[in-house]
Each structure stands twice: as C-alpha cells, then as structure tokens.
C-alpha cells in the first residue's frame, strides 16, 4: 500500500517545478497524472500523489472515474484526505466494501482494473520497479517495504502509471530487484511471460513524462513540463535516455486545478 509515498527516496519535491510560476513539482505531477485518466475508467488507487490525481480527475474531467483501494473500498468519496490506504474515510459513504480475497481475485486478477498506479525507489530503463531492497536480497543495504499489491497490479492492471521523482539513483539502468515487472523483466517480455496487462505505459516524473517505446519497451522522454529541458531530464536518469524527435510540452496547472488541490484535496499540504 501507500506506493505513492514510497517513490522519491530522499528527493525534495520543492527543488523542482516552477516556484516562480507559483506551483510546485508535486502539484504539476498530480495534475499531469490526473490528465492521464479517462472518464469512466476503473482505477486501483495508491495513497499520496496518485490519490490526489484521481480525486482531481473526479472533480474535473472524469466524474465517472471508479476508485478502488486494495483495502476493499470501492467507489469511495473520502470527506478528508486519506492518510493510509485503509483510512476510515474511504469506507464511510463508499459504494461497496469487500474482503481482500475479492479485491485481488474478482477485481484485479479477473481483469476488471483498467489503470493501476505504481511508484518505487528504483525504476529502470525497461519499466521494472524495485520496492524490495537496495543491494543484495539476503543482506540488503536498505530494506524497502516490499511488494504489497504492486507485483499483481503491475501484472493485471490493463495499464499502469508510474509516479516517481527523477534522479540517477532512482532511475538506474537496471533495478537491484524486480518487484513489479516492466516491459522486459526476469525471463523475457510481458508477452513471453504471459502477463495480461500492458504494463507501465507512462511514467509521471517531476520534470516530464516518460513513455515506453512500442517495440523495445524502453522508457523514452515523451513530454516536458514548462521550464524543464531534455538535457535536464537526461542528466537526472541513470541510463542514456532516448529523447524523441518531437516531444509534447505539458500545459501548466490551471488555476482551477491548483485551487482544488490546495484548498479542497490537500489543504494541509501533506503531499504537496
């Protein structure tokens, strides 16, 4: 659970974004992630930025979004910002609460989840994610929380979105441990491994958006936030990042988006 918080390691989100333009990198990330969601989609939500992104989409362009938390709350309408994925505010007034055997078997394994959010201490060139250990599994330098539901979300969600802040340490050539499979993981490609979902199609970072190459599955720079540069992104990634001939420029947060984030969704600036 709580994959949204387990992403940036020691990164300080205030070091990026456009303070001059009046918004933070975290705000830009939440807005960029929310814009990826289509109305009516069924989303497996994590806490933190993904939760903000989903509730922002609900309040703006995707009123029909269905939020499912792995704790068993379906169609939640939290009256306050949930601090954990099992927050009581996710239960009060939700449409359905079911046991976790149903969540993982009837919803996730049965292919009912369209979008899953993932984060991690390490994301590699092929979209593999490590939330287990830094260093050797048997004698780790840093012991991370582990999979939680991330392994099965990465496998079964029709597509996943990774939300993570850029740094060479956080985006290495290869992760130390594959907790959640990307486009080419231990033993082959997703197709070769019989993995149903499409995997991490988009990676929402604090400088721009990476996208998986259709053939190779390698993450490439697909879009930049205002003020960010391709060289800046390449310098913050641990492999020789491929930059597309032409990339999009993400529109900055609108006043309405910032208003919702700051005064309604995260008034105490817990995640922003």
């Amino acid at each position, binding site marked *: *659970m*709580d994959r949204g*918080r*387990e992403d940036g390691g020691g990164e300080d989100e205030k070091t990026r974004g456009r303070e001059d333009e009046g918004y933070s990198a975290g705000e830009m990330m939440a807005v960029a992630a929310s814009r990826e969601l289509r109305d009516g989609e069924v989303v497996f939500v994590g*806490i*933190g930025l993904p939760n903000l992104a989903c509730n922002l989409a609900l309040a703006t362009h995707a009123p029909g979004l269905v939020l499912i938390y*792995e*704790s*068993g*709350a379906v169609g939640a309408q939290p009256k306050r910002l949930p*601090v*954990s*994925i*099992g*927050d*009581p505010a996710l*239960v*009060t*007034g939700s449409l359905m*609460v*079911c*046991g*976790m*055997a149903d969540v*993982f*078997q009837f919803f*996730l*394994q049965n292919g009912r989840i369209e979008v899953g959010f993932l984060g991690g201490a390490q994301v590699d060139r092929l979209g*593999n994610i490590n939330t*287990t250990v830094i260093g050797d*599994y*048997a*004698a*780790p*330098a*840093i*012991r991370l*929380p*582990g*999979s*939680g*539901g*991330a*392994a*099965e979300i990465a*496998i*079964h969600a029709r597509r996943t979105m990774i939300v993570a802040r850029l740094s060479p340490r956080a985006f290495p050539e290869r992760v130390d*441990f*594959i*907790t959640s*499979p990307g486009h080419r*993981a*231990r*033993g*082959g490609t*997703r197709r070769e*491994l*019989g*993995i*149903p979902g499409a995997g991490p199609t988009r990676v929402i970072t604090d400088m721009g958006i990476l996208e998986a190459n259709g053939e190779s599955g390698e993450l490439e720079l697909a879009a930049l936030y205002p003020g960010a540069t391709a060289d800046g992104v390449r310098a913050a990634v641990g492999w020789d990042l491929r930059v597309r001939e032409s990339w999009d420029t993400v529109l900055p947060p609108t006043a309405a988006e910032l208003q919702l984030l700051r005064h309604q969704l995260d008034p105490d600036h817990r995640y922003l």
Partner: protein
Amino acid sequence: MSKVVSMRQAIAEHVHDGDVVVVEGFTHLICFAAAHEIIRQKRRDLTLCRLTPDVIYDQMIAAGCASKLVFSWAGNPGAGSLHAFRRAVESRPPALEIEEYSHFGMVARFSAGAAGLPFWPLRDYQGTDLPTANPRIRSVTCPYTGDTLATVPALYPDVTIVHAQRADADGNTQVWGLLGVQKEAAFAARRVIVVVEELVDAAVIRADPNRTIIPGMIVQAVVVEPFGAHPSYAQGYYDRDNDFYVAWEATSRSAARLQAYLDEWVHGVADRAEYLRRQPDLRGRLAVKPAWSGEVSYG
C-alpha cells in the same frame, strides 16, 4: 457456555512460545491490546504473519518476541519505515528470518488455510524476483489450458487473533468496514481469539446474521477490550490515530526511544484499561460522528 475471559488469560492459555501467530486487520481492527499482552507475557520464538507487519509487529520485533516474519508490505502506512524491522533485517547476520510474498500471495495463503487446501493457485509473479527470493512460491499446470499458474502454500496459524466491533459470549463475531483477511485468517487457524469493542446479546447477532464473519464454533476465547485496536481504529467506534503512526517514525528510528516507549506504554501498564487511563484525551481526540447504516428486514 460463555467463552469470555480476560486478555491476560486468553494470551496465557492460547499463545505459546514457538507458535505461528497471526494478529490480522488491514489498517482497520489491528489488535494492539493483544500484542502488548503477548509482549508483557514475554512470548519468544514466535513466527509472526501479517500482510502488513505495521507498527504492531515492529513493537513485537523490538520486544524480542519474534524469530521469523511472514509478510507482504513492511512499511509504516503514510509515515515511513518500520525501523525495528529494518534494524533486524539490515543487521549482519540478519536478526530476523523473513518469508516474503505480495499482498495477493498472503491473501491466497490464508484462503488455502481457511479452505483446508494445501495450496492456492494465482496468476502472479511472472517476471519478478520474488520466486527467487522465496522458493515456497511454486507453480502448477492447468489441466484444461496448459497454463502455468503460480502457487503459494496454505498458512495454518496456531492462533489467530481478530479484533472486531462486536460478538456474543459464544464468539459469533460481526465486523463492518474494511474486512481485510480476518475471516480467512480465523478459519485457517487452530485456535481463534476474538477481541471486541462490545459484547452483545446473541439476539443482536441473530437480528443481522449476514454481518457475522466468524461463527462461535471456531472461537476459543472472547475478550472484551474497548479501544483495544488503538492506534489502529474500529469503524463506527473511534478513528485511526494517524498522529501516533506519524510519530512512530521518530520513535522507532532510535532503538533506545523505542525501548523507552515499550517500558512506559507496554511493560509500564498492567493492561489496556490502564493504557487508556493514562491517555484521558484519547476518546475525545479520536471520537467519530455517527453515520447510520439504516435497517433491513429479515422477515
């Protein structure tokens, strides 16, 4: 006859050194009162199993109760790390044996135990390093499609402790809000202790039988312990103490501060009643506004 006993008696009778112990509850209904009594009674060499070890097992690990941990996500929800767990696992050699799955894998292990099956099949782990890290994750071939499916072995706890909103004296137990794997963990266990916010007459249970998740026939002991889940919560009774979870990051970061916490709040109190007397503000701070379910008719 009534199965109602004190927490002290329930733990003394049903939790033994070397047991495989499960105190479940996914964020909701985590029975800290039982964990604290297990620590006070100095149980040792326990194999602790939970999806999320959470602060409850971080405390038991720090107190020296555990020799092995079986889990799927070892973080402090929304607040950071479980530092007693990390110190044990990051030390050389590790001071704690671990057996690691994903959430689905742990749910499947409890489901198999509850169903009396030796294993449970699931589509999972393709492309991950988890089966390498944990050789108990294996596979079977589907006799119809030829597909290879992952398997996990059944988990049969010696004792499962479930916190719930209410039960009758025979242990017929009702839960609402997040259900986690409470039902599966109870049916999988050899012995079941139910800890409740409220003891109710059987007539209350019989008025709404669909809310019952654990039947008295599989329950050995019923303990009545209001606020027994704090700093976790009980839907409809009290809120989650998020401040406590956030503060645990700093408390658990220092082994000394963690021990001081245990000395004051676990060893330093006789029982949950005293734990609550020493925090007179708790009920007010974590009070919840009622949100009624409405009634249905079973006529």
